[in-house]
């Protein structure tokens, strides 16, 4: 009989136990394959990929340390190229800025390319409330949208779905009879989407980077959908987290080389767009208006905290792919827009006064450090997880399943007590441990044995050698 006193449970651990094995297997296979490709490609292409990661990290950190300078410079450059810059302090401000731009231009239909910040501010819900139709044009995001679901991965939003799931969704939406052939699904989506591109008055995008020196906005995709969003549109609105600014175009050489390799194991994504302002006499194509909405949404609070390094993130998802916990749990377990290791740090921080509701996320890690090892901008994620665990403890957030350490502190600072414990610990081998109502012990013993107690033996041996 295992331990009979039930222990409070960590939500993510419970989620894992209930996740269908098919989802778990799909997530594991896909993430493990991408991780292997990433290691291979970075190792093959660069003599010292680690040095490159560290360089990229210092570029991003430098940009953050001087964000006041670079953000202002980016605004100047963008304005000089004819774009209009807006600042949004909150998610609501950002959504309002978008609807105001659209309403002023009389636009009721928009197409979107993939953007995590628009997920973060729930832009689609907001637009729907204002009678504006917004269609996701990234295939994965489109499937998320028609299913009323949420992305479960930063780069691959439907990593948790099977092709059968998608075929059923398409059938339901009237996009053809059930057919789970990926090529057919893609062809049907393309046909549907092309109509939407032509109907839309505005294209909404995010930005992977904005360079301060030239005001260039960089978008990377594999489907080319952001180009389609912008080609026929009258208005381009880019929603950009304020941390996305980098000092200069030359920094992109380092960052883009790492982004594709880290995200999908590609040397470069299929499309890399450099957008250099709206239509002008010397640039006769593209949208007539370009708006860049810089979104804060608590990023300045993160910047002022002891976890600011998380803002270096370039959203490649490599830390999700390598993370053993993410591989078991998939993305929805994290109950927030950003899952995995980066989400375990970023989500509680962006939650503001709701920090406590997500304070369990930083606990969902064995602190193995694989996330830091693969991070293209060398974010010390384990250190940040530890700082947030400390913050949760200081704020007295209950932590189910975590033993209180006051007794350990007494043992660990009183050598005589410690040595006695080492001797008397031998009693454990004679006790029916698995029947004892000690929840933490029960949790261990349910799937694992404990080794035989050998406390004090080494000390005795060491002493005998000194005396001989």
């Amino acid at each position, binding site marked *: 009989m295992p331990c009979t006193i039930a222990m409070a449970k960590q939500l993510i651990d419970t989620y894992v136990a209930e996740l269908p094995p098919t989802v778990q297997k799909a997530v594991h296979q896909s993430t493990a394959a991408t991780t292997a490709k990433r290691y291979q490609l970075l190792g093959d292409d660069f003599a010292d990929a680690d040095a490159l990661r560290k360089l990229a990290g210092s570029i991003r950190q430098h940009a953050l340390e001087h964000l006041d300078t670079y953000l202002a410079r980016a605004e100047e450059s963008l304005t000089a190229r004819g774009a209009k810059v807006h600042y949004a302090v909150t998610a609501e401000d950002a959504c309002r800025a978008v609807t105001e731009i659209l309403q002023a231009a009389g636009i009721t239909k928009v197409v979107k390319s993939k953007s995590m910040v628009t997920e973060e501010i729930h832009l689609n819900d907001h637009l729907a409330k204002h009678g504006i139709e917004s269609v996701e044009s990234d295939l994965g995001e489109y499937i998320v949208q028609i299913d009323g679901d949420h992305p479960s991965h930063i780069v691959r939003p439907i990593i948790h779905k099977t092709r059968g799931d998608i075929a059923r969704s398409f059938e339901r939406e009237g996009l053809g009879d059930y057919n789970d052939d990926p090529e057919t699904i893609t062809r049907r989506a393309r046909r549907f989407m092309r109509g939407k591109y032509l109907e839309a008055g505005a294209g909404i995008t995010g930005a992977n980077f904005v360079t301060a020196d030239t005001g260039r906005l960089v978008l990377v995709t594999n489907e080319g959908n952001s180009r389609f969003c912008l080609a026929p549109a009258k208005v381009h609105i880019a929603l950009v987290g304020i941390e996305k600014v980098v000092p200069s175009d030359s920094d992109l050489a380092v960052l883009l080389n790492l982004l594709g390799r880290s995200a999908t194991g590609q040397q470069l994504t299929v499309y890399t767009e450099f957008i250099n302002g709206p239509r002008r006499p010397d640039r006769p194509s593209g949208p007539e208006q370009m708006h860049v909405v810089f979104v804060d949404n608590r990023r300045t609070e993160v910047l002022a905290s002891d976890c600011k390094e998380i803002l270096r993130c370039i959203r490649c998802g490599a830390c999700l792919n390598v993370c053993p916990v993410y591989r078991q749990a998939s993305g929805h377990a994290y109950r927030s827009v950003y899952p995995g290791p980066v989400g375990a740090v970023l989500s509680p921080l962006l939650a503001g006064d709701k920090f406590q509701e997500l304070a369990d996320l930083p606990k969902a890690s064995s602190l193995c450090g694989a996330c830091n*090892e693969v991070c293209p901008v060398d974010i010390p994620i384990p250190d940040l997880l530890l700082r947030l665990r400390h913050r949760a403890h200081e704020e007295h957030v209950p932590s189910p399943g975590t033993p209180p*350490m006051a007794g350990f502190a007494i043992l660990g600072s009183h050598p005589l007590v410690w040595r006695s414990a080492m001797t008397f610990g031998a009693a454990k081998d004679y006790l029916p441990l698995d029947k004892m109502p000690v929840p933490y012990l029960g949790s261990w013993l349910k799937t694992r044995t404990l080794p035989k*107690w050998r406390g004090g033996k080494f000390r005795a041996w060491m002493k005998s050698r000194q005396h001989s």
Partner: protein
Amino acid sequence: MINLADRPKSKRVQLMATCLCDAFFDDVAKATVEVLEHAGCEVVFPENQTCCGQPAFNCGQWPAARTVMRHTAQVFAGDEPIIVPSGSCAAMMFHGSTLEFEGERDRAEIEQVGGRTWELGDYLVNGLGLSSWPGEFPAKIAFHRACHTRGTASGPAVLQLLQSIKGLEIVPFGEGEQCCGFGGTFSVSFPNVSTAMGELKLEHIRAAHPDFVVSGDMSCLMHLSGLAEREDRPIKTLHFAQILRDALHHRHGQATH
């Protein structure tokens, strides 16, 4: 910040045996002493040592962790290198401590101790300058690189020594960069995730058919062998210090856990 390149390299060393070896794995601590002595070191064992405090640190309970770390810093006063047969405890000493003492008035004293701490394999190769190890150990081993040695010189150092031992074959296994699932108190607060991680690791290791599973951290091995034993499919585990020691005496694998 502690600069690991500045750590002392003298041959009189202090041994931090670790709480796990103190309680369960006495032979690993013995092997560590014998290996260091074979390499020409004089090993001092400060009797009042307890633990590096990592369990409390990882739970976010930093005041408790600092209490233990302050005691440890006192016990290991001096100038000698501190040698630890665990990458995890070593990382706690030279890295974790710098986090938990941010803003504390005695941070410098703590960092003085952390700045003398070496993981055993790292010390043998990069402290003492060894590039190979004598003796013989005819066996196939799977080497699990403990996570806390990521990005440190320990992993390559240990592999270099093991590879030089006559008769020893290191077999590769799948997803080697992945964690064993122990993670300290993570193993009890996230038992489902932890167990699944361990089972995956065991599956990969078993597929490689090693005679022994070897690591530089007994915590990983305790987790993996605990899981395997509960499944009634026990595995044989060894700390690399036991292999180095046994290679000298041409006995192999007598001291498994």
